């Protein structure tokens, strides 16, 4: 086992499950994510990967099991609490603030990191200018990482697809998470863009010292950057292991290719 496992996990998922109207979508999922690692969550379509993300971020309330974030049970937390506690995410079907500028999208991610109130804003007190200046500088740094700093003033909805995906990651990072959930970050990207994205994800992990849990269909990306991989099939955990173990597991091959 890797050295990471000596540390306490950031995320501890135990026997997690959810039913929708009597149908079990995810069952008996156990998953740990340790500081600074990149973990992949893969599986055929409909395996319940996005549902797992939705449970982790409390968009859905799990039916069974526990989710612990930095040792703290999230059972009573809302989506907002979970974000404050350190999980940020992107969405499979991009969910940007499409009518706002690229810069404002990232600044919106810093919502809970800004302390001035409505009075400072409406009367434009010095506190407002000072803090806006600070956060704008930080937002521009983030945008630079994703090569979007030149497009800061454009409307997010007008960006090409690949850039929208990158902006979504930048916005998630703006909330200063300890764990970043990426839902198919490479979807719709060409091989070259995907290559770039891999580098960026690694850089982000090292630079911000965070853990990454990602859902992806692009096997090159998954095998290339994930240190550990969890495979889901029909809402059940099929196996967990290193990329090599996953690649050579006959069950996984069967699940993907069918009988």
């Amino acid at each position, binding site marked *: 086992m890797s050295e990471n496992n000596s540390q306490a996990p950031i995320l501890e998922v135990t026997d997690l499950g959810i039913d929708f109207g009597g149908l079990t979508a995810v069952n008996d999922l156990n998953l740990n994510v340790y500081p600074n690692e990149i973990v992949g969550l893969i599986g055929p379509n409909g395996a319940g990967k996005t549902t797992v993300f939705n449970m982790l971020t409390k968009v859905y309330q799990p039916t069974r099991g526990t989710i612990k974030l930095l040792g703290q049970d999230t059972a009573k937390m809302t989506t907002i609490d979970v974000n404050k506690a350190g999980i940020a995410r992107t*969405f499979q079907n991009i969910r940007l603030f499409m009518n706002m500028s690229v810069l404002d999208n990232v600044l919106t991610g810093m919502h809970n990191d800004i302390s001035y109130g409505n009075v400072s804003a409406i009367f434009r007190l010095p506190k407002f200018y000072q803090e806006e200046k600070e956060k704008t500088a930080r937002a521009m740094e983030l945008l630079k990482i994703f090569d979007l700093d030149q497009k800061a003033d454009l409307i997010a909805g007008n960006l090409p697809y690949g850039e929208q995906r990158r902006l979504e990651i930048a916005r998630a990072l703006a909330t200063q998470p300890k764990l970043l959930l990426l839902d198919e970050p490479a979807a719709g990207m060409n091989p070259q863009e995907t290559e770039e994205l891999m580098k960026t994800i690694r850089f982000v992990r090292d630079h911000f010292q965070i853990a990454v849990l990602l859902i992806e269909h692009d096997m090159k990306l998954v095998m290339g950057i994930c240190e550990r991989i969890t495979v889901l099939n029909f809402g059940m955990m099929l196996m967990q292991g290193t990329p090599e173990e996953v690649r050579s597991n006959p069950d996984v091959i069967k699940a993907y290719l069918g009988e």
Partner: protein
Amino acid sequence: MAFLSYLISGLGLGSVYAIIALGYSMVYGIAKMLNFAHGDVIMVGAYVSFFAMTLAGLPFVVSALAAVVICTMLGMTIERLAYKPLRQASSLAVLITAIGVSYFLQNAAQLLWGSDTKIYPTILAGAVSLFGGQLSISYLTIVTILTCILIMVVLILFINKTKTGKAMRACSEDKGAATLMGINVNQIISITFAIGSGLAAIAAVLLCATYPSVYPTLGSMPGIRAFTAAVFGGIGSIPGAFLGGLLLGVIETMAKAYISTQLSDAIVFAVLIVVLLIKPTGLLGRKISEKV
């Protein structure tokens, strides 16, 4: 006994609201728009039947049929000219256009027929006397309630049994999928407006028979009430509109009788708010959830 009498007259008023609300609800369910001009179609129906009786001397039933025919055509024309070009536009744009149509109808009526109040002829006088005269129910109330029930039954059969009705349900679920199944969505929307407007004409006749004054803004208040009734029951749901209309009529009548005439408006809307807080999509409305 007084309570029973109020209850029955409340059901009578509620039946009229229910018939109007059905039109609102069907249009909302299929075209996903709040048709604020619906109330003014009622007004046109009232004028048509009024003139058919007084000027042309036609019997009541024939006048009512004339109103239904004219309103049906009016509804389809409005849809074709004002709403159809806005199929892709924001719902707010359609709402404002509907308001424009409402102003148009009111002002056109005022120009054509004057702003003075016209007295609707008495259609059906007399009442049934029950319990040795302690309770009297007017024939008109009975006819109104029966008409409403009949409409309700016919509509439910139509929606569930006929091909057009099924197509309507498909359109309200998913217009894109309906188109792929070979349903002519534009035609279905047009038919929905036709039915809604025809019902508005029936409501107009029943309304004016009960409250016999005809004037250009006649439709505004019943329009808002019926809209409230539709939301009350769960907008888009046919049984919901029926239930919402009846309840609203009863609540309004009871509030007037037992609390205060002046405050009946406030009470009706307060009840609506309470209902929505408990059931955010109305009494029989479906829950809406977003896929993430």
